[in-house]
């Protein structure tokens, strides 16, 4: 078969699109989370650590006997807690968002590993749980509830951002905190709230990996997915709808490379295929760069009464 017909074959199969939606789910959640933080003016490089903690905490809760949905709540709460740490340092104290974020990633990751090892000191095969099961629906619709949740959250986040007073306040503090304050808003509280909410979403992205995509927690399991979300937010020009699109596009590349890798009969090094999503993301960025309008106060700390 020539390349084009293979490609067509892949793209026309329902299984391919099922995989795309599945692969996209953690990116959708993580990107939404990062987007909410950045919309409020706070870059959250802690995403990788927050996702790891979400993956571990959600899984651990279920492993200790909680229900799957309870596990999700636990993950979100832990994510919000790390988000609170990030926000406490970067918002009222105005510390560098880059370093704090990297610190939070390091802390979230190492703390997750530490706790996991402390609770399960002698695991030689990773213990497993019974994860979310795909719903019994035809074709690409056969997804676990978390995928549906992620897609619903895109609409919810978009609604909140663009149609509610709180969403407008979040966008305002991300664009011009001084203006928000002049309108009587509490910039610090809104930023902290947004970072916590965003971090909770990131933790859900992590929990998806252990409660839906797989059934055990692994060290290094998040494997750079958080960093991709940061890129996707830029690609999405900070818009929830485009974030969904970006996550789906990335997932398409990823699902495609997995299939092309096999179809290529080992002629090309597999690394070339693995590179594809990253290179295509950079290309996509170059194409959208000129039009991107970032939140103007992103990464700029705001301390009341200082100029």
């Amino acid at each position, binding site marked *: 078969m020539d390349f084009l017909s293979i490609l067509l074959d892949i793209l026309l199969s329902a299984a391919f699109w099922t995989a795309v939606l599945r692969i996209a789910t953690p990116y959708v959640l993580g990107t939404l989370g990062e987007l909410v933080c950045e919309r409020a003016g706070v870059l959250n490089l802690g995403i990788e650590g927050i996702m790891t903690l979400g993956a571990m905490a959600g899984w651990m809760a279920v492993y200790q006997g909680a229900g799957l949905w309870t596990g999700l709540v636990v993950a979100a709460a832990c994510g919000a807690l790390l988000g609170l740490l990030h926000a406490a340092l970067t918002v009222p104290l105005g510390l560098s968002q880059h370093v704090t974020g990297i610190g939070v990633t390091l802390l979230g990751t190492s703390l997750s*590993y530490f706790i996991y090892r402390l609770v399960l000191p002698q695991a*030689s095969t990773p213990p497993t749980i019974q994860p979310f099961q795909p719903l019994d629906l035809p074709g690409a619709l056969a997804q676990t509830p978390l995928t549906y949740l992620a897609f619903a959250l895109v609409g919810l986040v978009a609604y909140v951002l663009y149609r509610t007073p709180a969403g407008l306040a979040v966008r305002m503090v991300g664009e011009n905190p001084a203006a928000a304050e002049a309108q009587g808003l509490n910039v610090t509280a809104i930023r902290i709230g947004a970072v916590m909410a965003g971090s909770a979403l990131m933790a859900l992205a992590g929990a998806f990996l252990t409660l839906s995509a797989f059934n055990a927690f*692994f060290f290094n*399991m998040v*494997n750079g997915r958080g960093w991709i979300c940061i890129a996707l937010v830029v690609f999405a020009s900070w818009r929830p709808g485009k974030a969904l699109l970006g996550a789906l596009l990335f997932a398409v590349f990823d699902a495609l490379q*997995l299939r092309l890798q*096999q179809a290529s009969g*080992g002629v090309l090094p597999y690394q070339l295929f*693995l590179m594809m999503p990253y290179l295509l993301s950079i290309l996509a960025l170059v194409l959208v760069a000129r039009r991107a309008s970032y939140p103007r106060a992103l990464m700029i700390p705001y301390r009341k009464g200082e100029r």
Partner: protein
Amino acid sequence: QGKVKVAGIYTVPIEQQWVSRIHVALKAAADRGEIEYVWAESVANTDYERVMRQYAEAGQQLVFGEVFGVERAARAVAKDYPKTAFVMGSSFKPQEPNFSVFDNYIQEPAYLSGMIAGGMTRSNVIGMVGGYPIPEVNRLMNAFMEGAKEVNPQVKFSVSFIGSWFDPPKAKEAAFAMIDRGADVMYAERFGVSDAAKERKVLAIGNVIDTQPQYPDTVVASALWHMEPSVERAIAAVKAGSYKAEDYGPYSMMTNKGSSLAPLGTFESKVPDAVKAKVKEREQQIRDGKFTVKVNDAEPKSTM
């Protein structure tokens, strides 16, 4: 009181299949009261040499680990501590007087599990998902493919690598991709592959560890690695004061009970008798030294 002090230094978490075999064997020895066992996991290769020295300085008598990425440094450390016994995963030769090597030479059961896979596939497509194409992985995949082809010359293989040891969701996706394209038996080098097979109701072949208890309707057979013979031999030698550098490779082979084909268990009645007979015959030949499985460390390629 003759407990041998043993340390393990692992570059990955102890859940990683390869390392878990060493860890389990040492832990069993510790539980039996033969050794005192300490271990460090997720040691970056940059730090590996330091940890080796720290354990040697701390008076550990026997050190297990894997030095694939730090061959040179590790051998230098061994030279500096001639009284400490090092038994390290390595593709190279032992080094006098105290640096022994081992590796997962379980190509024999891998070959046998390949035969079973070849006999079980209906679509004649077998999918294989690996982390990286390193010798420890390639060797088993190649043997597996040979075994499958012996039983079923029509069989085709689809191979892919995910570029990570620790990403089961990704391995699972790679497996799904293969199943979507017709594979009905999956070679589960990574965690996640058997899960995909289970979800899609196709079969899987395990590797290094026995996962049939977790996947009773999915995992047909597994090529198992047992580090116990190597571990026991090293401990005995240290205890007896007769430890010397040697190649522990053979103690990972079937003849020395270093590896085995897992019992078919839930699949006992589902594997065709003809296949079972062939496997049994080969197994006997291997034990008798009449059949050798070639060690081929080259990167396996898809044949589709």
